[in-house]
């Protein structure tokens, strides 16, 4: 017997290995639109954001709360624009010129949301999004749906359905 020849045991072992089905572990992914407000990073789920706009003219509408900054013209239709700073208890942004506007849809409503800057639009594994900590401040508990780490920073994932529903009821 040639010493290079395989033993029956080795042959069977190789056979078992090759017959073993390849198990693909496909992890569920979700798209996130990550944005910055006063240096903090937040995100909305991508399926809630229809469009990202920049350099739009905001028309002031009197008689609304300060966080409802006005309306914008989106290709012939108008959308409201809200700022999340007050809702998130962040100071107002000084630089309005570099702002971006997320066109969001939630709770059967739609509106623009002014953010300081759009950081990225990324696909992340759902498993990377963790439940919000119990130490979350009171004002964030109902509107934060998760937390993740991205580029060495903490990203707070916000629940747009809840934000729009609560906002229409007088929050912010």
């Amino acid at each position, binding site marked *: 017997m040639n010493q290079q020849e395989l033993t029956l045991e080795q042959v069977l072992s190789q056979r078992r290995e090759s017959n073993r089905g390849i198990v693909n572990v496909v992890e569920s992914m979700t798209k996130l639109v990550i944005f910055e407000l006063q240096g903090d990073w937040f995100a909305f789920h991508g399926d809630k954001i229809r469009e990202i706009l920049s350099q739009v003219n905001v028309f002031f509408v*009197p008689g*609304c709360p300060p966080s409802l900054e006005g309306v914008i013209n989106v290709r012939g*239709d*108008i959308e*409201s624009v809200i700022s999340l700073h007050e809702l998130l208890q962040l100071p107002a942004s000084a630089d309005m010129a570099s702002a971006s506007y997320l066109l969001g849809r939630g709770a059967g409503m739609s509106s623009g949301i002014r953010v300081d800057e759009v950081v990225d639009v990324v696909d992340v594994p759902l498993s990377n999004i963790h439940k919000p900590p119990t130490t979350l401040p009171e004002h964030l508990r109902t509107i934060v749906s998760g937390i993740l780490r991205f580029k060495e920073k903490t990203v707070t994932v916000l629940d747009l359905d809840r934000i729009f529903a609560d*906002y*229409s009821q007088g929050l912010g």
Partner: protein
Amino acid sequence: MSKTSGDPGQVLSSASSTTLEVVTFFAGGQRCAMEARQVRALRPLSDEDGRNYLALDSVLGLSELNNTCSHRQILTIRLPESDVEFSVAVPVELSKLELASIHPLPDLVAARTRLRGLCALALETEGLTLMFDLRKLT
């Protein structure tokens, strides 16, 4: 916004299919409008009756500006039960708004506005016009 001259109380409801005839005015420094068919008449406000009329600005929830008799007129509004008169700052004009410029209130504006009777927004190159339905005041 195209403008026509004349008394809005006399020239009403002749809007074509692409425009809506409205009466425009300024309240709280903001251009406002209402359907011309809701307006019965417009007449000057004299010094004698200056204090007897509610300012439309404050009725709508807008701050009252330019509230001197010489700069205001009396607008007679048709309401279901009876006509109502308000004072309003000049200029008050009969105009036509392009239908394409008129939009329903965005959801969050409708939910959060404190303005009474606000029912639509008209967005033109000149800017934003608040549109009111005074029948919703009652």
